[in-house]
């Protein structure tokens, strides 16, 4: 039974995919070209210095521990809200996703400003795990909400206990979601700068920034970035192996949800657990923001410009969300239907940029724009383009996840009824993945509205976003003055998280009717 027998695709699709990937991957070209300029001897010196081993160790150990932590917490939280009779599950679902509304650098500063001892390796583990676990929680919850209870029931009827069933049936069925979430978490960790800078933890991303800062040398910084690319490629390949083996497609048209599992005496510990997680991941940043707002002596009433910055931020974020989502659709469609070299290369390449520090990507966009798109340089479309390149992987993940939910036979049925491929796409496939598109857009909008590095380099001269203003005040040590901008960033992001939660998870949930 080959459910993936590819129907004749639209001839334009491979072309479209190639164009999108060429644009998204353009920073890699820049990085390779720049790295090549340092010369072999200098490259050896730079890569052979003592710091490189430290960076590799720091980056790798952090990626492993945080990813495992985020996967564990994300899965456990998703299981509790989707499959058990945890009280107030609807509320918990939203609250558990909310840390996404807080940018990582705000997370980092919140902890450091309240608990100075939170720093270094364990500080980074704590802050990054508690801010990134929703990237696992959301896709896993979506999968759990949609999947058919019969597999679990079969396992139970064969006499397996609840834990065995969980480990042998439920976890494998959610593997694509787990792998996708783990990939995003680990790629985020490779590229994150702001939070680690706050937490005094040196990784490749912070070292690359320093290289630009002190050496004024794109060549040696690009060399380090190449190492980061190699790490990212390794992760993406790993994900392709882990995720594909468990490639899960709902076979029937409707999944039959099972009854919620009674927690019994585990109810209290479960409640304590989700409360602790929420307090760590959401309570601390919200408390810190309130604390800055009230305490910082530089706090004055936010100037009128804060409204302008908010509007600008929102405009860019929404436009970038729409474009990135639109660009992700052909790539997701193509790699969903085809399992050829182009499809695989497209997907893997698309993810690489996620792991690169914003400054490397931003400078590469500067490089290309001044040469090939001069009239657009430092104009709004270019900043949108920058966001699309930066956040394309997020859109792709969400669109891909929603395609995985489309029953494979359905397009063939439509086509056998004589409908042309384009019409099938527009009338059958697209309506089915619209919720996924909403999730993709929300995810991009959310991340773009808090982006800092690329915004500083690419935004039209004279305009300010909330993130750039926050930055301007924190570097001047005016934390109180910065707080309103951070608070507004979080407030603007909250509706996107809400939308993301609802769109990702969809309407059905077991036990909701009761």
């Amino acid at each position, binding site marked *: 039974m080959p459910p993936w027998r590819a129907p004749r695709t639209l001839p334009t699709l491979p072309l479209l995919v190639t164009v999108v990937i060429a644009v998204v991957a353009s920073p890699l070209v820049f990085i390779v070209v720049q790295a090549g300029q340092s010369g072999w001897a200098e490259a050896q010196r730079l890569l052979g210095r003592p710091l490189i081993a430290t960076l590799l160790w720091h980056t790798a150990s952090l990626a492993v521990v945080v990813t495992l932590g985020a996967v564990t917490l994300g899965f456990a939280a998703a299981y509790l809200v989707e499959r058990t009779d945890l009280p107030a599950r609807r509320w918990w679902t939203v609250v558990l996703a909310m840390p996404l509304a807080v940018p990582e650098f705000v997370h980092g500063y919140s902890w450091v400003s309240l608990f100075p001892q939170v720093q270094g390796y364990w500080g980074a583990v704590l802050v990054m795990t508690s801010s990134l676990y929703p990237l696992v929680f959301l896709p896993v919850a979506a999968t759990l909400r949609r999947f058919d209870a019969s597999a679990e029931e079969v396992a139970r009827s064969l006499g397996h206990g609840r834990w065995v069933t969980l480990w042998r049936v439920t976890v494998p069925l959610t593997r694509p979601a787990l792998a996708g979430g783990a990939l995003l978490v680990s790629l985020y960790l490779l590229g994150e700068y702001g939070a680690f800078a706050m937490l005094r933890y040196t990784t490749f991303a912070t070292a690359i920034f320093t290289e630009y800062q*002190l050496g*004024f040398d794109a060549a040696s910084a690009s060399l380090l970035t190449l190492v980061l690319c190699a790490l990212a490629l390794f992760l993406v390949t790993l994900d392709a192996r882990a995720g594909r083996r468990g490639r899960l497609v709902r076979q029937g048209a409707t999944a039959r949800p099972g009854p919620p599992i009674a927690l019994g005496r585990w109810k209290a510990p479960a409640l304590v657990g989700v409360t602790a997680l929420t307090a760590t991941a959401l309570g601390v940043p919200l408390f810190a923001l309130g604390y800055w707002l009230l305490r910082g002596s530089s706090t004055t009433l936010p100037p009128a410009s804060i409204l302008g910055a908010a509007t600008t931020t929102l405009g860019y974020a929404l436009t970038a969300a729409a474009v990135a989502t639109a660009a992700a659709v052909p790539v997701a469609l193509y790699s969903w239907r085809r399992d050829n070299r182009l499809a695989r290369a497209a997907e893997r390449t698309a993810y690489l940029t996620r792991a690169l520090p914003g400054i490397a990507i931003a400078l590469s966009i500067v490089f290309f724009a001044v040469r090939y798109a001069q009239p657009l340089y430092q104009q709004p479309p270019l900043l949108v383009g920058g966001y699309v390149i930066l956040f394309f992987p997020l859109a792709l993940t969400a669109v891909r996840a929603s395609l995985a939910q489309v029953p494979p036979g359905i397009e063939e049925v439509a086509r056998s009824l004589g409908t042309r491929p384009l019409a099938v796409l527009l009338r059958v496939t697209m309506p089915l993945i619209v919720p996924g598109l909403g999730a993709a857009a929300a995810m991009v909008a959310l991340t773009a509205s808090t982006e800092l590095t690329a915004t500083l380099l690419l935004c039209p001269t004279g305009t300010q976003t909330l993130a750039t203003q926050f930055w301007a005040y924190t570097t001047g040590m005016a934390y109180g003055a910065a707080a309103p901008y951070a608070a507004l960033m979080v407030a603007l992001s909250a509706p996107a998280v809400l939308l993301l939660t609802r769109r990702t998870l969809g309407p059905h949930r077991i036990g909701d009717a009761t």
Partner: protein
Amino acid sequence: MRRTVRPVLALCAVSLSLAVAGCGSSAVPAATTAAGAQAATGGSLAGQSLTVYSGQHQQTVQVLVKDFESRTGVKVQLRSGDEAELANQIMQEGKASPADVFYAENPPALTNLEERGLLAPVDTKTLQTVSASDSSAKSDWVGVSARTAAFVFNTDKMSASSAPSSVRDLAGAAWKGKLGIAPSETDFAPIITRMIATDGQAAAKTWLEGLKANAKVYNSNEDLVAAVNRGEVAGGVIDHYYWYRLRDEQGAGKIHSALHYFTPGDPGALVDVSGAAVLSASKHQSAAQAWLAYLTSTPAQTIIATSQSYEYPLAAGVQNTKVAQPLAQVGTVASPGELGDGKQALQLLQDAGLL
């Protein structure tokens, strides 16, 4: 007399639209100034626009921009960011850069652009308003303000009398576990550059290794000064203004730290300039030169001296009233030539494993 006339001349040189009002009230005939000369050949700058990439303290630069705009009628597009990011951006932009002016925090950012031939010579009149050693030896950029490196210490953990007189002392065993440094800050590398010049490459390397053994490493001076203030480490090397800004932010009552200055002449008693340059690719050369002239004029220098930047003005006759230690007592300004492009210091930092 000299002290009053020179700033007035400088002011006239830039404020064309103000020439009537401002200089009219002074005794200096407008025709004898650079502004007068410019007015005769090119007319007013009013209506022109100027793009300034600024790595300097944003709040202060915004005040300067407003003042400049109202004096000249030039519209300034301000792009504020990290000086290193902006310098890298200009390098990538090359001749296509929309920037007319780059206003940096430290000489190496400017020197790197100078070495790539991206800067235009600064008007002689502007260069003359500050001491020659404050600007580029090649006249490609002009010094605008200065700040000094200092030792910040926690007053609960140690007394001023036990503070080090030389930055060299910090590599000693007495400082093990008590010191904080921020080696990735652009202000830190110039100290190493000076150490290389005074003590030699090998000694500088040994010193860095000693620091590495003693110190907790922070990512920024903001983090470092806050850590010293709360007693996480006993002391650290920062630029003096970070301490003043912390005091403003937390309120004097929450301050448990104080500044101590290294002995003048010590590599740690580093007075470092901020400067500005006109890009050679700029299409608004005269407006850009006017902005540089403005930055070194009395009104702008007074704004800098009284702002929250806590920097020392460089023009003669303008004093900083907000900083306790006068510039003359801190040390002499490190010449940009002495600081170079910072590449040697960077390599030492890398070899020592600090970067």
